């Protein structure tokens, strides 16, 4: 199984790097909002020490990490739902490796390519704006934020798959995927840090899984108390277990009604 995973990872990286022009153009397209954001925040903080407790450097770093995380975590993995609806899932069901494991590995390869290519270009942009993006307060925060990012990958993948498995029952996923995308975008901290929300809403959001995709890994990087870290990792771990179990149950039920369309 490990050999298979290594092969899928290797071959997906080859596949993702095959069309180099695509890769460069999409990297540049992703960088434009980041550059815009750096310019905007520079202006927004003129004469202001902090916004909602975030300094200029902290908020800029937060959005830079968000930029890296947006490429790292699988936001809407459209292929899963598509494969179920069109029957392309058939070929995967005929082989021993689990389809969702296979796609998690492929997504991991895509994310690795993205982080390396786009991340390195992003660092160049940061160098062009010196002092705006900061390192974490200590190496421990860096390691913990990396661990949080790894868990965020797993959580986002499982959440995305849960939405996509509805394709076993529904022919059109637009409604469900739009709702998932909206929730994830608003409540994950991708648009603004969760701390910007009114305190009650922020407390509720921190119990939901979405906040652990962007906000929590970025917060750990910027520095939090040990108690906050422990609580955050515990909630995140719990959501990974819950969504994992839900995914398993839904997959099993979905296969019972699967149409296996096409010849």
């Amino acid at each position: 199984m490990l050999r298979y995973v290594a092969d899928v990872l290797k071959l997906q990286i080859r596949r993702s790097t095959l069309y180099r022009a695509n890769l460069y153009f999409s990297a540049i397209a992703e960088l434009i909002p980041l550059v815009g954001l750096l310019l905007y925040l520079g202006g927004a903080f003129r004469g202001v020490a902090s916004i909602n407790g975030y300094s200029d450097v902290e908020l800029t770093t937060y959005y830079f990490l968000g930029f890296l995380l947006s490429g790292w975590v699988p936001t809407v993995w459209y292929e899963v739902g598509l494969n179920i609806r069109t029957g392309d899932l058939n070929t995967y069901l005929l082989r021993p490796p689990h389809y969702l494991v296979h796609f998690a590995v492929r997504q991991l390869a895509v994310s690795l390519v993205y982080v390396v290519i786009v991340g390195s270009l992003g660092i160049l942009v940061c160098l062009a704006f010196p002092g705006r993006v900061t390192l974490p307060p200590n190496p421990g925060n860096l390691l913990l934020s990396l661990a949080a990012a790894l868990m965020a990958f797993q959580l986002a993948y499982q959440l995305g798959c849960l939405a996509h498995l509805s394709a076993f029952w529904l022919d059109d996923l637009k409604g469900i995927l739009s709702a998932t995308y909206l929730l994830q975008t608003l409540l994950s901290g991708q648009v603004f840090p969760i701390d910007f929300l009114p305190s009650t809403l922020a407390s509720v959001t921190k119990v939901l899984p979405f906040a652990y995709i962007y906000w929590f890994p970025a917060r750990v990087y910027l520095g939090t108390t040990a108690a906050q870290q422990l609580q955050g990792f515990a909630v995140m771990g719990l959501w990974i277990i819950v969504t994992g179990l839900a995914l398993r149950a839904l997959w099993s039920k979905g296969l019972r009604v699967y149409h296996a369309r096409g010849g």
Partner: protein
Amino acid sequence: MVRDTAIVVSNLSKSYKVAIQRSGWAGIARDFVNRQYRQVEALRGISFEVRKGEVVGLIGPNGAGKTTALKILSGLLHPTSGSAKVAGRVPWERHRDFLCSIGMVMGQRSQLWWELSALDAVLLVARAYGLTPKLVRKRIEELAYILAVQDLMTTPVRNLSLGERMKFELMASLVHNPAILFLDEPTLGLDLMAQRALRGFLRSCNEQYGTTIVLTSHYLSDIQALCPRAIILHQGSIVFDGNLDALRAASQLKLVQVQGIPEYVDLNHWGLQWEASTLCWKGAVDPSQLGTLLRTVIDLGMVSLTVEDPPLEDVIAKIYAEGGLKVHA
């Protein structure tokens, strides 16, 4: 399950519902408020067995249930009722042993990554079965030789012709040496040479490795070339299960050709038609009427009369048209 039985199917049924789309503006409104469905009976309690090493063809018109049967046997679909065992396992439980025992080729669906070279694409499939690199290399070399594709191994899958790609699809389906191979329209869209090559390969697989093969095809030449036994499905039921000779015999028709009787003598009521190009009467006749027909044409001064089995296409077309020939040869 008997030891030499590869597949046992008992009372297998599959039904599903399909939404009815009513036409017009009123239809759109009615469908929005009150959606209606109709029940489709894809399979209606079919039963059969396949022995190890047997090659069986599933024939039937579109919508007869061939592909549904194949999908259930390969574990892709859950049946509505009935039971099945393939290689000693219930297919839809998708046990690892079962998945390692079967291979499937779907003529219209590729299992190979298009961006990869053919070799890498097949290697990836082989890895999924946990085969050792040494074993995989040996198996791929062997299959590449039989399929005559050694020169194409480094070509990206997307650059292969349909015939070449089908050979690699077969290679991917057979790389783990499955005991049972399911083929759904394997020769669809292939030219005659490629069809012949594929048939030759499947025959050698069956002879060399004892692979049990179940295939569906619209081309009767596939069935005639490969399958000593055919199962004909019609509207989800088995209407014939036996060898092809028995099918012809059971068709209750003989192809009769009479020479020496002029055109103006009316033989139409016997089911015969005048064929101007050969100047003879031809047609399919019920065997029970042959004696009477023979006496009649002798009296009319015939020169020769030939009686033979009709082409398989005609037999099967008659079965479809009549909604089935309930025989079990």
